[in-house]
């Protein structure tokens, strides 16, 4: 099984190497199918692992293999593979989406300038993503973490001729790095205290008291529990960056500058979920405070991003904010201790959001072709205000859109309903039962369900808004509409597959109850034992019991809020009973805030980046123009100025190199030159004075 996992890990790297070194030569000769083939091979392998897992049906299954990578004697880092059921499911998700995106891209990207390279980059992405999934230690996960960052950079910037794309790529990388340094700090704390990066060992050593006894060596004897909170939150910072949680979410919407299949693969289904996956991995050693922080950030992000999604007109931007929002859900779930629910939502979201993006790609593809036919390079093919009525022309795409929108909105019979419901139940339970962590201490735990249900309502609203604007109503640009066609099979087949995978039954088998998430998934994935023995938020049994109790009220409430959202959407965008414009003017500031993403980008640019760059400029200038120039060379220049007046040795100083010797020497030299009058008798007097001074100095 380890070997299988290693094959899954490294095959995409092979694809990358082949495409980078030989891809160009085979661009016209179906070279891309090598990559597609490799990807599907890994999918088959993953499925094999999946089948084994199902047949084993052991929630505690785990396998670990590690090799020494870096050994300094007293300090060492091992790299290794850790496989449990979560890993296997995640591998399947990655392999599946990646394969489908590969397939889809053969049509979507056809004729692109850097076609082979695109597939190469998909390869290195898949490799790095698998690396994250298989990592058994924080250090290794960090390495692959950065590598997915790299692939994300490369793919977002695929069309780097556009400044916006290049900007977005850079922004994504750097924003992620901000999160990463937090993660790195957390790692350093853990490594310092425990001497290991390995997930299992960390948990073990926290459990056996090593943490408590060693923690005092940092920050001058800090409380071990507090340090663990800090470490946990810091590592989670990495997830904040990668999973686009507030306040580091700003890169994800911009990342939509990349090709749409990339958005589906990286910025919806897999990479952005890596943050959630990381949180899953560190879940056992999160303290109550850390979890409260995580839950709060997740919940806030869920609601916050949803409010922005309402007003976006770019089809991909809506989906991007929706992704941020859904990731917030997952994070919030993990923070509330609803481990299974969080991971479950990750998987279901990967399916329906992948499908949504690919479907939107299908729409954009069609728009693009139509515009191409019209020779129109002005109109934005992604703007929903240019669409409308596409239902008739693109039935398959529309169908997929409907299914997946239902899933994301939490409508029964679809997968999203199950997972979202579980999360909401989790927040409900948390609010009701929590007795530690700062949210509880501040009596603010109730805010999490508010976030959750609020976001659920808004999600339903904007997703249907998207559907209505795109597929219903009149075609807003008839001449464009005329040339719209359904996308080719290689594109629609993946769509349909993913739509199917967005139904409830896929996850509940062998049970077929559409409103309960019991099934194979809950069989194989179970919440791990926490390593934090003191001050845990609540005990596990208690929590599961609470979940069970909260299940029904949460479900009902969520159905109601989703229904309200849909209803409003229908009224505004389908039936036009309420004018969107009127609503916008009435809401005024709120509307503008949402449209402008609550001015977060502006805040970053004007509040942080610009001042910082100015600071850098100041440093750069200080260094060369002030420090070096004045303090080190300046003496010389001053002398130059004075000496112009005096009118001597000008050429010498203009010569440039004097500026080191300093004004004192210059001045001294000048004075001494003055003494050297050429008159012998002056000299003699100076000698006498000199002798007298020598005498005087030594007498006293």
């Amino acid at each position, binding site marked *: 099984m380890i070997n299988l996992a290693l094959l899954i890990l490294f095959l995409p790297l092979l694809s990358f190497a082949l495409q980078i070194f030989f891809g160009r030569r085979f661009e016209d000769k179906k070279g891309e199918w090598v990559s597609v083939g490799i990807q599907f091979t890994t999918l088959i392998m993953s499925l094999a692992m999946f089948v084994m897992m199902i047949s084993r049906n052991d929630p505690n299954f785990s396998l670990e293999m590690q090799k020494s990578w870096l050994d300094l004697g007293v300090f060492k880092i091992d790299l290794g593979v850790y496989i449990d059921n979560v890993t296997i499911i995640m591998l399947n998700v990655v392999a599946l989406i990646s394969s489908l995106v590969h397939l889809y891209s053969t049509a979507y990207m056809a004729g692109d300038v850097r076609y082979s390279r695109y597939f190469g980059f998909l390869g290195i992405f898949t490799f790095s993503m698998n690396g994250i999934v298989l990592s058994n230690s924080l250090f290794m996960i960090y390495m692959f973490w950065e590598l997915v960052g790299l692939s994300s950079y490369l793919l977002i910037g695929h069309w780097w001729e556009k400044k916006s794309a290049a900007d977005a790529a850079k922004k994504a990388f750097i924003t992620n790095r901000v999160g990463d340094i937090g993660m790195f700090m957390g790692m350093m704390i853990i490594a310092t205290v425990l001497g290991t990066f390995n997930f299992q060992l960390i948990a073990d050593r926290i459990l056996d008291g090593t943490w408590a006894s060693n923690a005092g060596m940092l920050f001058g004897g800090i409380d071990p529990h507090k340090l663990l909170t800090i470490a946990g939150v810091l590592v989670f910072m990495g997830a904040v960056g990668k999973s686009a949680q507030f306040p580091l979410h700003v890169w994800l919407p911009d990342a939509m500058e990349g090709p749409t299949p990339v958005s589906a693969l990286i910025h919806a289904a897999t990479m952005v979920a890596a943050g959630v996956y990381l949180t899953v991995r560190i879940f056992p050693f999160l303290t109550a405070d850390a979890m409260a922080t995580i839950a709060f950030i997740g919940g806030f992000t869920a609601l916050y991003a949803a409010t922005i999604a309402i007003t976006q007109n770019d089809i991909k931007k809506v989906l991007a904010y929706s992704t941020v929002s859904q990731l917030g859900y997952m994070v919030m779930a993990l923070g509330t201790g609803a481990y299974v629910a969080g991971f479950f939502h990750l998987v279901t979201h990967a399916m329906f959001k992948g499908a949504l993006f690919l479907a939107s790609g299908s729409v954009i593809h069609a728009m693009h072709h139509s515009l191409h036919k019209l020779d129109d390079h002005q109109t934005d093919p992604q703007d929903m205000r240019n669409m409308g009525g596409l239902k008739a022309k693109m039935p398959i795409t529309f169908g997929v859109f409907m299914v997946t929108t239902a899933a994301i909105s939490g409508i029964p019979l679809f997968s999203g309903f199950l997972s979202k419901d579980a999360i909401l139940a989790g927040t409900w339970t948390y609010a009701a039962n929590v007795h530690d962590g700062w949210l509880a201490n501040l009596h603010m735990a109730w805010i999490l369900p508010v976030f959750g249900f609020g976001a659920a309502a808004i999600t339903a609203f904007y997703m249907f808004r998207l559907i209505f604007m795109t597929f219903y109503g009149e075609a807003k640009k008839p001449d464009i509409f005329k040339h719209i066609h359904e996308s080719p099979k290689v594109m629609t087949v993946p769509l349909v597959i993913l739509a199917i995978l967005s139904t409830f039954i896929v996850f509940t088998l062998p049970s077929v109850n559409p409103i309960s998430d019991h099934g194979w998934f809950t069989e194989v994935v179970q919440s791990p034992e926490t390593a934090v023995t003191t001050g845990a938020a609540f005990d596990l049994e208690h929590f599961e019991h609470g979940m069970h109790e909260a299940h029904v009220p949460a479900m009902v409430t969520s159905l109601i809020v989703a229904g309200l959202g849909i209803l409003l959407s229908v009224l505004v965008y389908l039936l036009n009973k309420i004018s969107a414009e009127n609503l916008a003017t009435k809401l005024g500031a709120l509307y503008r805030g949402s449209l402008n993403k609550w001015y977060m980008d502006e805040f970053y640019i004007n509040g942080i980046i610009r001042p910082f760059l100015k600071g850098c400029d100041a440093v750069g200038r200080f260094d060369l123009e002030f420090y070096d120039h004045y303090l080190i060379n300046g003496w010389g220049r001053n002398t130059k100025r004075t000496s112009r007046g005096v009118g001597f040795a000008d050429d010498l100083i203009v010569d440039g190199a004097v500026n080191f010797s300093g004004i004192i020497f210059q001045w001294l030299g000048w004075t001494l*030159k003055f003494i050297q009058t*050429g008159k012998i*008798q002056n000299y*003699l007097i100076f000698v006498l004075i000199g002798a007298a001074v020598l005498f005087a100095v030594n007498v006293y």
Partner: protein
Amino acid sequence: MDHLSSYLVLSAILFSLGLYTVVTRKNGVAILMGVELILNAANINFVAFSKFVTHTLDGHLISVFIIMLAAAEAAVALAIVLNLYNNRGHINVDEANALKQ
């Protein structure tokens, strides 16, 4: 006048006069005369010390040599001053400042 101190005072006066002459006179020959004064001040010292302190002839001996060397020095110096006169038409040392920077 048979105290050592009288000789020393005399020599000190001579020395000072010599210094003064050397420093103030512009005429090359006069400056050389100032030098002679300094040398003779030393001579007086040597002879006086010889007579009053050591009671040997060492000092006398030295002063004889000094007189001799002073003559040699004067010869050289005058030759050079003469040369200066040949070149410039005067022996004003003060104006010899072509080498000023």
